[in-house]
């Protein structure tokens, strides 16, 4: 009796290979009756017999897996008609079609790591953004020797006054059309020109005005800002 059961387990063990080799229908194998036969003497098994039983069970699970694959292959080979598929596309709205994709999408798992040196560079950059550009306020005037500021007439009182004048004039002009940056600066010379460029940079930093490059005329244009401050503004003189 036990000898027969041993042989049965050995035969079950090689079943998946045989099905694969012959291309037989895996549903021809009666999995339920095999399992009930294996269960009959399971309690009496010992040592090597238990190993054989485990191998047989493993093969049965492979057969079940093959049955699953066989079904999906059949579904594919039966050929879902293109017309039927198109009908489904047209009857389902985009949201439902998207949810079909989501329900079959398995995202890749990956851990991205940032090196310490890159983190430091990022932190330095972030800190550098907290002054100009991050705040809608104009911020403090850079720490330059007082004499130099005096020679350029860049003291805060003068700048505030001039800033308001230029701001009103520029915003009124820009509300009609953009102005080439160079043309706007060309009305001033020397120190005055530097001061005007500096004031424009302050307006850009406040988000009221911005500079855009127009490739069609190869010129930088002053345009009305969208309220988002430019994080850095180069002064071109």
């Amino acid at each position: 009796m036990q000898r027969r059961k041993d042989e049965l387990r050995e035969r079950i063990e090689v079943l998946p290979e045989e099905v694969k080799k012959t291309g037989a229908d895996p549903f021809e194998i009666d999995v339920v009756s095999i399992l009930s036969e294996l269960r009959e003497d399971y309690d009496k098994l010992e040592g090597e017999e238990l190993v054989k039983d485990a191998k047989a069970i493993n093969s049965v699970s492979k057969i079940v897996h093959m049955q699953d694959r066989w079904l999906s292959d059949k579904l594919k080979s039966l050929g879902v008609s293109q017309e039927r598929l198109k009908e489904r596309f047209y009857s389902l709205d985009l949201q439902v079609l998207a949810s079909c994709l989501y329900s079959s999408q398995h995202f890749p798992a990956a851990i991205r790591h940032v090196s310490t040196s890159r983190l430091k560079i990022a932190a330095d950059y972030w800190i550098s953004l907290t002054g100009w550009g991050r705040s809608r306020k104009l911020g403090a005037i850079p720490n330059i020797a007082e004499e130099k500021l005096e020679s350029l007439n860049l003291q805060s009182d003068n700048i505030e006054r001039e800033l308001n004048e230029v701001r009103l004039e520029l915003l009124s002009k820009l509300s009609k059309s953009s102005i080439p940056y160079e043309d706007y600066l060309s009305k001033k010379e020397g120190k005055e020109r530097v001061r005007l460029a500096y004031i424009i940079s302050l307006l850009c930093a406040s988000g009221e005005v911005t500079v855009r490059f127009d490739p069609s005329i190869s010129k930088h244009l002053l345009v009305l800002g969208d309220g988002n401050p430019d994080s850095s503004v180069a002064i071109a003189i």
Partner: protein
Amino acid sequence: MSEDSESEELKEKARKGLVYLLMQRHSHPGCKGWELKRILGRNYQKLIPLIEAKADELGLVLRVVTDEDDQDIDRARFVLVSKYPVLDREVGGWLRMEEAASLAIALSTIYTKGGSESKEAILEILKEKLPAWRSEQIISKLIRLGYIEEDSGYLKVGWRSKIEIDLNELLTAILTKRPD
């Protein structure tokens, strides 16, 4: 070498392989077979079941994607993916809703057509649901992201779809989903 120490060594290698697969070094996820060979040794394929078992504990599955014309396992891509679909859109995803829908249409059409379909035919279907300019924009984006491959005017399933999308599940969902 004793059996215990050999088994420990195998476990250690499997752990190393799992970590290597998880760490993204390139713009693409996972790694190539030859990279695993370099890290784990010549017999790295024998370690795959152990790596799979460890990945399973984390709710992940190892996908091995070979090139259509090149079945060499050393050149195949090994990627860990989530065992179950991630249905919460907040968790991840590169695609907007209409892009995901277009990908569903393109992939299921390509799949049922036996692996490739002309770009024009797919665009024609998409244009029934979206403006023409948007359909073309989406197809270009899907090609750029690797979800679809273009070859002489014909579209095929791309490497990213082979990894991420279960085409049988997709087709079943499209055929069985009820319209809202």
